[in-house]
């Protein structure tokens, strides 16, 4: 047992050294003395040689990947404005000492500003997008030039209380829930969508040669052609599949290896945390209730108040804020149409131990005083 462990540790160490040498050789800054050291290291043993051959092969094969061709085209131009960087703002902010007024105000004013901003269609024709700077938010879009070789990201956002139907350049159809944002990057080899905010339903056109991926926080869905819903919640991501086979992966950026991957089929759903780790196992869901938002309806059966409010906020012009954290997890059962939200809020006060207060621009939900 000990021998094997030792051998494993040794191999790992040699691999690390091999990588370091490769990175040094291609750094653009090499010294003769160190090159001699490399030769010594390489010739120390067959293990060293094999490790380096392996590193070199991987380095070489990177130039043979289709995706590398795409990425190279993107990185090329210095003048391209690079992707959007919006913080996913959760409108159902729960108050506590941690959340100060400025954060709430900026979240709220951002919501109003977004009403001014319109989603733009693209039918695979390069178009120009304006870059707007809004308050505490920086909103950017990719500006395309006339250069067809360039890859364009397209930015779509929906207004509050309005679903937005989009057709992507590959024929896939996306429905954005209210107040939601996606960025779509479609190339000859890949179709990549990022759900920046809110929720969207994807009906993906089949293309065996191009993976269609949707990334929300650190969760990534990968398909060739299916239909599914992705919801970016308060601190979680939920993927629900209505058709086909869908691969859902927890991503780990920067240093770690990839996280777990689950396969979902029709009527299956899974929940992940913001960091990409899955919460529990996959479960079944009811399309009628969970995806009722596609028809402008909502059906909640024992759903925590915080999530209900997050969903409602996408369809309500005032920002609804839960002020007392203890009521966040109150289980709510109700169903209604998007235009009935006023009544629903009133109903909450009647049916649950909460109080609902309307200001000029906000609705506060507080724990009811006993």
């Amino acid at each position, binding site marked *: 047992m000990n021998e094997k462990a030792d051998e494993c540790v040794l191999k790992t160490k040699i*691999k*690390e050294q091999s*990588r*370091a040498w*490769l*990175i040094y*050789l*291609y*750094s*653009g*800054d*090499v010294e003769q003395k160190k*090159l001699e050291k*490399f*030769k010594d290291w*390489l010739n120390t043993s067959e293990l060293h*040689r094999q490790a*380096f*051959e*392996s*590193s*070199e*092969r*991987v*380095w*070489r*094969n*990177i*130039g*043979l*990947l*289709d*995706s*590398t*061709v795409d*990425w*190279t*085209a993107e*990185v*090329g*131009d*210095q003048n391209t404005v690079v992707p959007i960087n919006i913080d996913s703002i959760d409108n159902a902010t729960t108050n506590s000492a941690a959340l100060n007024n400025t954060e709430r105000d900026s979240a709220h004013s951002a919501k109003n500003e977004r009403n001014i901003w319109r989603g733009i269609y693209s039918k695979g024709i390069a178009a120009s997008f304006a870059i707007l700077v809004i308050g505490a938010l920086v909103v950017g879009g990719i500006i395309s030039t006339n*250069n*067809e*070789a*360039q890859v364009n990201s397209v930015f779509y956002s929906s207004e509050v209380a309005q679903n937005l139907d989009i057709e992507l350049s590959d024929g896939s159809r996306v429905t954005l829930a209210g107040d939601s944002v996606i960025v779509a990057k479609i190339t*000859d*080899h890949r179709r990549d969508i990022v759900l920046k905010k809110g929720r969207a339903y994807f009906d993906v056109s089949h293309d065996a*040669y191009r993976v269609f*991926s949707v990334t929300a926080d650190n969760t*990534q869905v*990968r398909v060739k052609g299916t239909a599914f819903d992705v919801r970016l919640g308060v601190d979680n991501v939920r993927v629900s599949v209505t058709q086909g086979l869908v691969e859902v992966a927890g*991503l*780990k*950026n*920067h*240093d770690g*290896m*990839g996280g777990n991957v689950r396969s979902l089929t029709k009527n299956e759903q899974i929940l992940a945390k913001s960091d990409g780790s899955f919460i529990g196992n996959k479960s079944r869901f009811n399309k009628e209730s969970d995806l009722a938002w596609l028809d402008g309806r909502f059906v909640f059966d024992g759903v925590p108040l915080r999530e209900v409010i997050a969903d409602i906020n996408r369809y309500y012009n005032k920002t609804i804020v839960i002020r007392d954290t203890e009521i966040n997890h109150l289980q709510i059962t109700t169903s209604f149409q998007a235009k009935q939200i006023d009544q629903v809020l009133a109903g909450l006060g009647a049916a649950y131990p909460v109080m609902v207060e309307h200001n000029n621009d906000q609705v506060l939900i507080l724990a009811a005083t006993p």
Partner: protein
Amino acid sequence: MNKVAGKPSLFFMTSLQREKKSDKGNRLVQSTTRAARKSPQAVLVESLYREHWDELCRALYKIYGAGPPEPEDVAQEAFTKLSRLNTMAHIENPKAFLFKVAFNISLKSIGRIAKTRAFIAEQLNVPLADIDEISPEKILEDKQRIDALQRGTEQLSEKQREILVRSRIKGETYAQISAEKGWSKADICRQLNAALALLEAADADVNT
């Protein structure tokens, strides 16, 4: 080559199309024979040329600059190479293959890169062509590895991808990347290390 007009003449193709003058001058027979002599590879390369010459030149210009070598020369060499291959039947994406070949030609022309590759080939005691050239046969041989690598790249961060593309494909030094992006050289090395570790793991999985 007429650069002013944009598209150069297909001089490397004329060997495939050169008319054989028969004594009787029977043009009809000749043209049929000529058509029958055109190999599938020639047809493919011609169509790639027609469809992608402009795009390729633009991409080369954007990525490697005006040169030397000039983008048109690199593109020309890429098409020449392709036309000399026996077949590209197993290549799923001929356009991407064309671009890969062109990028590699540009890369090879960077003195520092050429020297490093030659050094490595010598140390590993393998022919330079193994390290320096792109061939459909190699892609076919390594198909499983390449697919695994492709999957592995999906897990890289944007930063890692950019560093990888800049160093591996554009041939930039870490000092150049640092100057352009503002990242420290140490950070660049770290990211590259992490990216390669991930990709090597994906590659290793193929063997197990």
